[in-house]
């Protein structure tokens, strides 16, 4: 007898992504069907002021619409709370701007379904993946990778990647406490310090198809400072 197939959901936090959200959802659904999974997609509209919400209403997915903008991490956490309550076994996170390759969701799921990881991160910089990005951004990412590596004593190649998948054990950790803004690097610290197995797999990321990054260049330094502080605190908080 085959065990019941795992219940997998994809959470897409979206803030002003009306240009790309249709394609992103369509591609996610296509790739899930390709993997033989029932396509369950949850779009969290983080108080968008453009047509994101009405665009999502016409799509075959669940819409969680926030009354106002509460930050990417907090919007993602809403997706966690929803999927946890619906007894999902695995949750995949995909950005709404189209830079995450839906066809590589299978690669993210593999270590989870094999039971060799609790959290899987799609890395642009591992293996033969790759992505063009500005000089400043590359420096920032290198810095965060180094900081992550130092704090956790392990190699992290893409700590800002939001293309992730996690099992129910990791999901449960995020229900009460989850960084509410720019959550990616801090979440890695959180997961690792809670002794979850965090694994990176190589993926190829696309150029953004619309909208803007949640991090503007002018805010880059502030972002780095804030994230550094948050990561240090995350380490201290879990210091046993």
């Amino acid at each position, binding site marked *: 007898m085959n065990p019941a197939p795992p219940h997998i959901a994809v959470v897409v936090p979206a803030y002003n992504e009306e240009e790309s959200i249709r394609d992103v959802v369509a591609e996610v659904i296509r790739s899930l069907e390709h993997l033989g999974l029932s396509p369950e997609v949850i779009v969290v509209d983080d108080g968008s002021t453009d047509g994101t919400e009405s665009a999502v209403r016409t799509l075959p997915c669940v*819409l*969680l*619409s*926030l009354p*106002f903008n*509460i930050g990417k991490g*907090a919007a993602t956490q*809403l997706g966690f*709370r929803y999927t946890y309550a619906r007894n999902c076994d695995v949750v995949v996170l995909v950005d709404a701007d189209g830079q995450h390759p839906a066809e590589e969701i299978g690669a993210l799921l593999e270590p989870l379904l094999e039971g060799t990881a609790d959290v899987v991160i799609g890395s642009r910089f591992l293996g033969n993946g790759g992505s063009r990005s500005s000089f400043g951004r590359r420096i920032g990412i290198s810095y965060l990778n180094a900081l992550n590596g130092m704090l956790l004593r392990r190699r992290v190649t893409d700590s800002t990647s939001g293309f992730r998948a996690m099992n129910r054990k990791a999901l449960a950790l995020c229900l009460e406490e989850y960084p509410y803004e720019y959550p990616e690097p801090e979440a890695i610290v959180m997961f690792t310090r809670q002794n979850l197995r965090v694994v990176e797999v190589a993926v190829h990321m696309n150029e953004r198809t619309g909208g803007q990054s949640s991090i503007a260049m002018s805010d880059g330094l502030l972002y780095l400072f804030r994230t550094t502080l948050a990561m240090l605190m995350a380490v201290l908080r879990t210091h046993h």
Partner: protein
Amino acid sequence: MDTVVPLRIQILSIIGSVFFLMLIGRLILKRKLEEEYAIIWVVCTVFLLVLSFWRAGLERVAALLGVFYPPSLIFLAALFAITLFLVHLSVVATRLEHQNRRLAQEVALLRNELRESPKA
């Protein structure tokens, strides 16, 4: 010593303190200020009032603490109180932000439930 604090300043500071106290009282009455935040202001104002009446008080306290220039003691105390209160306000703002985000999440979940539930 009669010249410790000039009379004019004394009258001015008494009027000022009483006026401030009335303002705080009025805000509490009209429910525009929670008692939690009013207490520090009431305490500070009463403190100022006491110093306004007790003219040699500031000099005595300053001498006791070894502060050479008595008025600077007031600045020190005021700066200290203001800084503490600002930290307190940041803590309050953080708590409210946290609750706000949680409420927004609940609203989104309820909106979804409403949409999914069969229309009565």
